[in-house]
């Protein structure tokens, strides 16, 4: 049953994404692209782009997007409920423990060693997105590479690192630049 599958997949995303924001990304990729094949890597890249441009957590955005594509609005509700359900329980429990003991040293110890792993996982997902930008679903060969995409990526990375430009502005400029260059070259 597809609703149950959606619910359980996003339950895993909600339960194991620790650290917020991009931490959910590698899990969503592993469930939705690798695990169930609900989205291609290209669609997943589009999804992350859309999620970044719209308000709300990536996990909730992804649950809605994937849910609707697979099983319509009920699918979206099942997936979204799946991804917030573990939070509701775990956060309530932690809050209870916190108000009772006001001490989180063990939790902080676990989090401290989780952080480098989560950073590494985000890096892994980031590099597979970079590959998707560079060659799409093709093999990693020089003749398949979208060089303009690489140049835009490098320029965007530079202005983000060096001058701390607003991420959404940088993304919009990349989109406009790509469209503009193709229009000028007449290759639309």
């Amino acid at each position, binding site marked *: 049953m597809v609703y149950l599958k959606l619910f359980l997949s996003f339950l*895993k995303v909600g*339960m194991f994404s*620790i650290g917020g*924001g*991009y931490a*959910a990304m*590698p899990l969503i*990729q*592993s469930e939705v692209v690798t695990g169930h094949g609900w989205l291609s890597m290209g669609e997943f*890249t*589009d999804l*992350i*782009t859309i999620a*970044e441009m*719209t*308000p*709300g*957590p990536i*996990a*909730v955005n992804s649950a*809605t997007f994937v849910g609707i*594509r697979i099983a319509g609005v009920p699918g*979206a509700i099942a997936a979204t409920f799946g*991804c*917030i359900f*573990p*939070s*509701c329980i*775990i*956060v309530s429990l*932690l*809050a209870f423990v*916190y108000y009772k003991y006001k001490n989180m*040293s063990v939790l902080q110890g*676990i989090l401290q*060693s*989780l952080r*480098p*792993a989560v*950073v*590494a996982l*985000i*890096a892994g997902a980031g*590099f597979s*997105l970079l590959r*998707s930008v560079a060659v799409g679903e093709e093999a990693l060969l020089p003749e398949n590479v979208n060089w303009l995409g*690489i140049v*835009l*990526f490098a320029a*965007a990375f530079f202005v*983000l*690192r060096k001058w701390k430009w607003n*991420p*959404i502005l*940088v993304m919009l400029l990349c*989109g406009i630049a*790509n*469209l503009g260059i*193709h229009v000028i070259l007449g290759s*639309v």
Partner: protein
Amino acid sequence: MEDSRMEDGRMEGSRKGKALVQLFLSTLYISAFTFGGGFVIITFMKRKFVDELHWIDENEMLDLAALAQSSPGAIAVNAAILVGWRVAGFGGMVTAVMGTVLPPMLILTLISFFYQAFAANPYVALLLKGMQSGVVAVILDVVWGLGGKVVKERSLFLCVVMAAAFAATAVFQVNVILIILSAAVLGVLRALWLRRKKEGDRWFT
């Protein structure tokens, strides 16, 4: 919210109803207009619930923020759960979560319905394709910052965990959940080992 501390029990219900409506509208508004993820949303919540409505005091909000960030799931949803519980118990939690989740659900529902037509349009496709380069840069910029912070802690353990996790996911395609669980187990063992080293023989007593 001094004026809401009601002595009159019969008034309590309608006051609570009003608080729930206000909680719903506040979280709905914050969620609909906050771009940039969990940390940003916590700042907005602080401004609304601490500075404006005085429902929560500042120190407690800091603790709630720490809890929201250390729990699994989206930070915005976690913060809504905590603030909701704090303000109006279980009903408050449900209300705050609904307020937080509805705007992204509605927006993504609209986008999903138009996505096929959208992505088929050559101009939109080129725009999206260019934006993909940007989003990868944004993500790797965040990774660069976070990874740098880990390295700066000058802990061999943390660096090894990071390198091993990266190799596991990028080279060996190990399941993501397995990597997270392994890192958590290592964290527990390390915390126990450090405590034992510090406390010596007192550990078991």
